[in-house]
């Protein structure tokens, strides 16, 4: 047990050690200062030239959003087209069929919005062409979209009054060329040398040692898994995601993948500090996020290492903890660590099956997605946190009778309204979706019997988890859910769209509005935002808005299950 705990400690430590210089580097990249990969500038120039884009043209926040939404629409159409015709397109050695319209809709949206909810299984549901042109492609560009949106906010928070906030395409392309592409290249090669396949050949038929005939699924896995983690996408090449021994062959690859998915969200926080030259603010944000992360992590590791009481009752040796749905090469601790990093960060890849975790571990996983800002997804985690920050400044300002200000800009009714709308949208989508589905299910349990793999409280948790995962753009699931049906494909598809683009539009709009305002130098009357006291305030806002809104639903699912089991 000790070396399992040492293992997760080492993974977290390495993540921080690497994230700090990466944050510094990213700040230089997005400020346009001299940096390591400047030799790529000719490549970027030719990308812009070929696309007919002037990357020096400054945009207002509205123009940023129009550019972002337009190109996302183009990607959606491309993805729909390929997914619904993949059966008759090339690069399909396993002869997998085209997707049904509702499944193609769900899959295209899900990867477009960086969620990667998968209502299909990779081995039988996608051709290699779709894996590369739809899945891998969207994993790159959706992550870059999130980062670009966060950089617009960075730019807007500087101490000047302007509506010129840089160029969207410039931020977007640099996220790819200076970060995601080189990073993925490195990770993919490390994986390939550890046994992850990178081939266009189809399944290999072979006869096992004992004499059974099996076919082993292969594919261009390494290329996809790298950006799956680095871009906090999370959608697996294979059905079992990173639990699959070819997608994640050993403890080392597990550590590499786990670091890859946490590093950019953490580095973005540091980048904010370097970019604005407000390191204390970045430290406050990092502190709040880390406290939230550890509070969710600790009980999960504890309960998974303790094992399932129902199995303890059998009198067997459960020294290694709860092992249903887990892989022996990772063990209970690294699986628990992975599950929390993947739910606080909207990555959603899994190296063990969340459906089989202990009830309170399921609860912490869901809370990670319900708050959705403890590190959070590539770029968008910081945007969610920014909305909480605005609310905290406003409430704290009222409490002590000072004008609410953030970084020298007044927070007024308009910004506050947007922030509240964005943060309340999240519980609304989750709870309304869950309620509607539970209503449908209880109205006709026979017809919808295929939906739930488990009875009772746990079945309710499966529904709640699916909507939470969709609204958090996470993509992991309690995978026992029979979710490839029109109801699930369409309802979660709609939730995905709303919960991706509104939380990008809202914070970018707030930042844009703030950027235009006059800068008021900090004085004795200012409530400083970079102190531990204010950090406590932000945490309180997160707990009240995000966590407590979900308490009744959580009581019906994981909490009730916990007390029925222990």
């Amino acid at each position, binding site marked *: 047990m000790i*070396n*399992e705990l040492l293992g997760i400690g080492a993974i977290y430590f390495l993540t921080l050690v690497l994230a700090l210089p990466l944050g510094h580097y990213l700040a230089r990249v997005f400020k346009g200062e001299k940096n390591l990969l400047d030799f790529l500038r000719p490549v970027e120039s030719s990308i812009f030239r070929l*696309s007919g*884009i002037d990357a020096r043209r400054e945009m207002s926040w509205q123009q940023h959003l129009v550019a972002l939404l*337009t190109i996302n629409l183009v990607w959606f159409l491309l993805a729909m087209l390929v997914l619904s015709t993949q059966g008759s397109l090339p690069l399909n050695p396993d002869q997998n069929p085209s997707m049904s319209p509702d499944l193609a809709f769900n899959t295209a949206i899900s990867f477009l919005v960086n969620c990667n909810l998968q209502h299909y299984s990779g*081995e039988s549901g996608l051709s290699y062409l779709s894996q590369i*042109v739809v899945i*891998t492609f969207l994993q790159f*560009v959706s992550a870059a979209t999130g980062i670009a949106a966060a950089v617009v906010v960075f730019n807007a928070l500087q101490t000047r009054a302007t509506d010129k906030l840089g160029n969207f395409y410039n931020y977007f392309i640099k996220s*790819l060329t200076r970060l995601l*592409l080189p990073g*993925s290249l490195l990770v993919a*090669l490390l994986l*390939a040398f550890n*046994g*992850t396949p*990178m081939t266009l050949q189809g399944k290999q038929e*072979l006869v*096992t*040692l004992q004499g*059974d005939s*099996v076919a*082993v*699924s292969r594919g261009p896995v*390494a290329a996809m898994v*790298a950006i799956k983690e680095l871009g906090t996408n999370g959608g697996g090449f*294979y*059905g*079992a995601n990173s639990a*699959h021994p070819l997608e994640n062959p050993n*403890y080392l690859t597990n*550590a590499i993948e786990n670091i890859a998915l946490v590093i950019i969200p953490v580095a973005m926080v540091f980048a904010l500090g370097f970019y604005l030259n407000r390191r204390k603010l970045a430290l406050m944000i990092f502190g709040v996020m880390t406290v939230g992360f550890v509070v969710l992590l600790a009980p999960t590791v504890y309960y998974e290492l303790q094992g*399932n009481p*129902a*199995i303890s009752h*059998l009198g*067997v040796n*459960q*020294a*290694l903890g709860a*092992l*249903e*749905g*887990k*892989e*022996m*090469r*990772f*063990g209970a601790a690294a*699986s628990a660590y992975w599950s929390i990093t993947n739910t606080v960060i909207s990555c959603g890849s899994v190296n063990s099956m969340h459906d*089989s975790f202990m*009830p309170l571990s399921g609860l912490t996983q869901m809370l990670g997605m319900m708050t959705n800002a403890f590190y959070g997804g590539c770029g968008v985690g910081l945007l969610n946190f920014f909305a909480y920050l605005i609310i905290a400044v406003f409430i704290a300002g009222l409490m002590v009778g000072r004008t609410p200000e953030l970084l020298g800009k007044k927070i007024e009714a308009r910004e506050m309204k947007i922030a509240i709308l964005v943060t309340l949208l999240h519980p609304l989508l989750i709870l309304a979706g869950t309620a509607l589905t539970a209503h449908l299910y209880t109205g006709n349990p026979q017809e919808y019997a295929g939906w739930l*793999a*488990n009875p009772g*409280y*746990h079945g309710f948790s499966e529904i709640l988890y699916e909507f939470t995962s969709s609204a958090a753009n996470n993509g992991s699931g*309690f995978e*026992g859910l029979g979710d490839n049906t029109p109801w699930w494909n369409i309802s979660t598809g709609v939730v995905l769209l709303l919960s991706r683009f509104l939380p990008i539009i809202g914070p970018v709009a707030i930042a844009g509005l703030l950027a235009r305002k006059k800068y008021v130098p900090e004085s004795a009357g200012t409530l400083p935002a970079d102190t531990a006291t204010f950090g406590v305030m932000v945490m309180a806002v997160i707990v009240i808005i995000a966590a407590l809104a979900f308490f009744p639903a959580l009581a019906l699912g994981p909490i009730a*299950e916990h007390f029925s*089991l222990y």
Partner: protein
Amino acid sequence: MKQHLLPAFRLTLVLLVVCCLIYPALIWAGAQLAPNSGQGETISHRSRVVGYDNVGQKFTRPEYFWSRPSAVDYNSAGSVGSNKGPSNHEYQATVQARLDTFLLQNPGVTKAQVPAELITASGSGLDPHLSPAGAAVQVARVARARQLDAAKVQALVAQHTQHSLLGPDRVNVLRLNVALDEL
């Protein structure tokens, strides 16, 4: 929107070339230097490929070490866990039945010696490993079926146990069984 539509199309085309052609091609080229040219490491026995190093297999005969229970029955054209919740009564009955079967097929073994992994399904359904305890509890049965000295089989298990500083210790079942066949 109109002024953004054409650049969006063109940029998408350019990025398709970068992300879907150049990027995978570079990795593919690099992977040619990896073991088995990036097609996954395979294991051969008597000059025949009997499986992948990393992909678990089903073993049912008493003379082989058995892998963990699998929700896909080790059909490696798919992969999935059981997704059974911890409080599911039907699931608890399944686990109890697995334990009873195991005890029946391994006479002399007590409940407390059976590690949980032998009665619970893995996440992928293709887990290639057991813990050292999961192998140790099968030594007596394998030795009896092969009419070997138990100490010799135990030594083979020890030889195939991979220790690591950070993760759990483990034994690759297929490699162990191949080594048994080669004794």
